[in-house]
């Protein structure tokens, strides 16, 4: 699994639960090191062990932990770069949702060996959407759920999100948009790189 994904989980654990717990997880998973490198690729088995040990350490189910990872990636200042990249997807939450179809391509454009599962958004009436997350990265749909939740806050939209289980090869997420301009949301300026 790509180092960026492993590093994201590491960053989440260190910032939410503290470095010592992360070190405990790496030891329990027999990692042999503490820091993942964002630009290296690791064996899937390694990531698997880390995630298993992490859930054991936290005493929480994997889906919950992964959803928190997704929320963390958008809302924490440490990963502001990622939030900005996602905000380039559109000026409104609906535009952002529609840009998700391009997400794997956008990711590849930035980091050529980063493979994310294909995503497909279908829109039904009454502000209802279904996002199909294809297989390839176990648990990705839960991370996505967290990202979608946090991005709704970012845009100031009020949404209801639900993981609708698996249909054929895809994990389904149901999105109901209740109000587009529910809250202020966070600002996004195209040229805000001078940080």
């Amino acid at each position, binding site marked *: 699994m790509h180092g960026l994904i492993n590093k994201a989980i590491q960053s989440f654990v260190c910032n939410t639960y503290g470095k010592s717990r992360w070190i405990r997880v790496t030891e329990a998973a027999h990692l042999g090191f503490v820091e993942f490198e964002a*630009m290296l690729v690791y064996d899937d088995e390694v990531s698997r062990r880390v995630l298993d040990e992490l859930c054991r350490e936290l005493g929480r189910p994997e889906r919950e932990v992964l959803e928190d990872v997704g929320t963390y990636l958008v809302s924490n200042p440490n990963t502001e770069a990622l939030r900005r990249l996602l905000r*380039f997807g559109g000026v409104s939450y609906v535009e952002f949702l529609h840009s998700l179809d391009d997400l794997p391509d956008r990711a590849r454009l930035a980091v050529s060996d980063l493979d994310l599962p294909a995503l497909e958004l279908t829109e039904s009436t009454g502000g209802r959407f279904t996002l199909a997350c294809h297989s390839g990265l176990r648990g990705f749909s839960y991370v996505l759920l967290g990202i979608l939740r946090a991005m709704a806050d970012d845009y100031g939209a009020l949404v209801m999100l639900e993981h609708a289980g698996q249909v054929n090869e895809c994990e389904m997420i149901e999105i109901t948009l209740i109000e587009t301009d529910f809250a202020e949301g966070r600002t996004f*300026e195209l*040229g805000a790189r001078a940080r």
Partner: protein
Amino acid sequence: MKDRENLAYLLEKLCPMFVLLDAAGRIASAGPTLQKLRPEMEMVGKLFLEVFELLRPRSVASMQAIASSGAKLHLRFRDTPRTALKGVIVPLPGDEGAVINLSFGISILDAVRDYALTSADFSGTDLAIELLYLVEAKSAAMEASRTLNLRLQGAMIAAEEQAYTDTLTGLKNRRAMDHILARLTNGVTPFSLMHLDLDYFKSVNDTLGHAAGDHVLQQVARIMVEETRGDDTVARIGGDEFILIFNHLQDKEKLERIARRLIDRLEEPILFNGEKCQISASIGIVLSTQFVSPEASKLIHAADLALYAAKRKGRATYRFYNRNLTLPVVAEDGPPDGGSAGNDFSEATERRPGQDAQPG
């Protein structure tokens, strides 16, 4: 006139940075994004060339002349911020003016900052947003790569350090000494070299064991580091063999004092688990200036010869190399020397003041 209004409406939707010129080269209407760049300025009615400075094509008579040439335009605002723009110009039929479509080109990165532009300021087909996305995404990826590179560099330096260090004593190893000696022999700075061999070390190892031997070597290393200067080299090149290199030092008396002091201190008993370990040392010394061309192998061999001379004198002493030692006398405890060894030193000669060194 109706046509012109329709045209302006279309352009507004398709090219938010358009300029519609009348036949006189005045701005008849301007796109919303272009106007956003100069909110205080009423563009309509101004001469185009009054607002913009034309960089290319250079030297043109009128806007009409440029329009009919169909050239690509490079221009910038006359007032600050002097944002660079590029554009295309197309003449309207019947000499009724022209349409110019402008774009930021590469200045887009500064422009979005300077003017707080948003996605809505670009046409739906403009790749500006994708370009900005890509720049940010690549910068983030580059930053991550840079972090990795720094870490790898750190690891490389540590590995190199390790490759040049004798792990037991922390002294430099043979490989490090070879590098340093090669550098010195290629340079012009004179230096001297000592080959130090421990005496009676084997009996410490044999009677008290390897742990005692290791302890003694560590103490020996500490003493040698203490008795030398920071830019001198102390290397362990074999089990109980060491080479010391002294930069700039050619003074025989000073070298004698150093050798004497080293031997004296090494003869002080070293305690290990309550047992006294008693050793001593023999030293051979050579000055780089004793050779016309001081090659590393010659110097080491010369120091060897001096060392064996010291050993033959009953150990616990030092000897300087001199050309009389050139032909090795078969030494009881020395390594087997080839019969041709003497030939390696055909150039060896002792330099005396006022006498040019000459190849033998």
